[in-house]
């Protein structure tokens, strides 16, 4: 049920992808997204897909997980597909009343949907193979130049770490409270909208109370361990780039350049 939500779900592992530096993984993910959006050609697309399949295979993350990550965005995909299908002008394939579907529309609909699917699949790999702590560490370090302009990078990263850390806890808590209220006969599954909203009260109130209690406890625990922000704080795990990072960086650069070259020189199969 609630446990099936995979946002930020991390699958521990020892693969090449897992061992990449989180900073590099973030950069690679962004580069992959850029590559997807640069592509306007079937061949370029094959390269992006190939890269995705390769990454998933060496990270040993099951391909089923892609489907799982796609589930919540199915409506968005359908919406873009339908918009493209009906509102792109071109040679009509099918015409009825005001509705017309063009060959270009079909092509674009398929292409846009695939693009969104691969986008989500690729970015999910980042969270599947990087623990939330590593991820925020990576973001903090990548953004650290912004400290020069007084941007509170550390505070933001800490907030993110804590938020991520508490997602599973709160989900678990919600599950527990839901079970407890169901055990008392709370009916969460039937009734109209108003009734359902009312049925949430017995869940939300205890949940809020426990979230505040946890926040207070955590603040106290952090202060007891003398947390006082970024200044003078050192890390137990220093991030270090390795040959893996260099290799992946070169690989993605080569792929992006190839995609650009394909766009420029191969005109067949473009969208």
């Amino acid at each position: 049920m609630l446990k099936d939500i995979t946002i930020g779900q991390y699958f521990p592992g020892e693969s090449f992808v897992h061992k990449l530096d989180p900073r590099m993984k973030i950069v690679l993910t962004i580069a992959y997204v850029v590559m997807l959006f640069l592509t306007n050609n079937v061949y370029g697309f094959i390269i992006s897909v190939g890269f995705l399949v390769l990454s998933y295979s060496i990270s040993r993350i099951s391909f089923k997980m892609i489907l799982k990550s796609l589930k919540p965005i199915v409506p968005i995909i359908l919406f873009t597909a339908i918009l493209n299908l009906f509102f792109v002008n071109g040679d009509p394939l099918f015409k009825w009343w005001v509705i017309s579907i063009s060959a270009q529309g079909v092509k674009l609909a398929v292409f846009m949907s695939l693009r969104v699917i691969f986008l989500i699949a690729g970015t999910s790999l980042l969270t599947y193979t990087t623990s939330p702590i590593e991820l925020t560490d990576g973001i903090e370090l990548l953004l650290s130049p912004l400290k020069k302009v007084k941007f509170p990078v550390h505070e933001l990263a800490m907030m993110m770490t804590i938020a991520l850390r508490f997602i599973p806890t709160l989900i678990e808590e919600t599950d527990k409270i839901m079970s407890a209220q169901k055990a008392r006969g709370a009916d969460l599954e039937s009734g109209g909208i108003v009734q359902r909203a009312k049925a949430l009260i017995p869940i939300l109130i205890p949940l809020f109370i426990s979230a505040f209690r946890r926040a207070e406890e955590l603040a106290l625990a952090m202060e007891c361990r003398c947390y006082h922000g970024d200044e003078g704080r050192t890390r137990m795990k220093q991030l270090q780039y390795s040959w893996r990072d260099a290799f992946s960086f070169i690989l993605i650069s080569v792929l992006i350049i190839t995609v650009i070259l394909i766009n420029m020189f191969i005109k067949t199969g473009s969208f």
Partner: protein
Amino acid sequence: MRGRANEAIGGIKLPAIIRTEGLTHVYSEGTPFRKVAVGNINLEIEQGGFVGVIGHTGSGKSTLIQHFNGLLKPTSGKIFVDGVDIWENKQDMRKVRFDVGLVFQYPEYQLFEETVYKDIAFGPKNMGLSEDEVDKRVHDAVRFVGVSQDLLEKSPFELSGGQKRRVAIAGVIAMEPKVLILDEPTAGLDPKGRDKILSQIKEYHEQQQNTVLLVSHSMEDVAKFASSVLVMNNAGIYAHDSIQNVFSRVDELEKMGLSAPQITKVFYKLKQKGFPVDSDVFSVKDAKNQLQKMLSRGDSGKC
């Protein structure tokens, strides 16, 4: 009490209020976190018993009890409450939940209403009872758990930890379930509070003649209050027997990371050392009787 449990196990069958057939539950099927929480469980819980459920952390106790009122759906296997397969007709699931009341660990975290009265009335109201009946049940329930009537109009969030716990238990008792399951109802309470809550539950059990399942980490509590014990180990049932038969297997229990009540262990050791005592001692009261008997006979062996 103890005699009755023996009867149920040794021949004369009392009707089973809860029965499972090959009950199995697997968490996170198809992911690297796959875990069998309970595997192939066949058990019968007799009507009117007070069953202690013990097992170390992660042995599947909490998962098992959440199957009894249909909160968890078994991956495979069946559960019968009062002879009816609870998953056969999903519409009746709420009725099952009123028949099998489940008090979770730290139940005070589920309180949400403005007043204690309204919170306890939540369950009975969901049952669709009349105002008068709800009112009667709320008052009965607070009496059973020993919460004073003047607290009824207070906010549950103003109460002390122990009082909150009682109110939360009252919220389930007010549904007057045929089976009352309590998951570590005394966790985090002081020794006096523990004993009081458990005695009240025992009293409630004796008055209502219903079935009670008590999940506990305290062997003393189980020995003192329960009539039979269900021992869980590694997602399965290790033993389901009378207090006597289970706690006399001190060595096996220790191997599982559990133990027998302290007083039983003392007498077990005494017996091993050659003192003429029974090792079937499960409470300090039993121990006192035994010692008095031994001393009055004057045959204290080596002493």
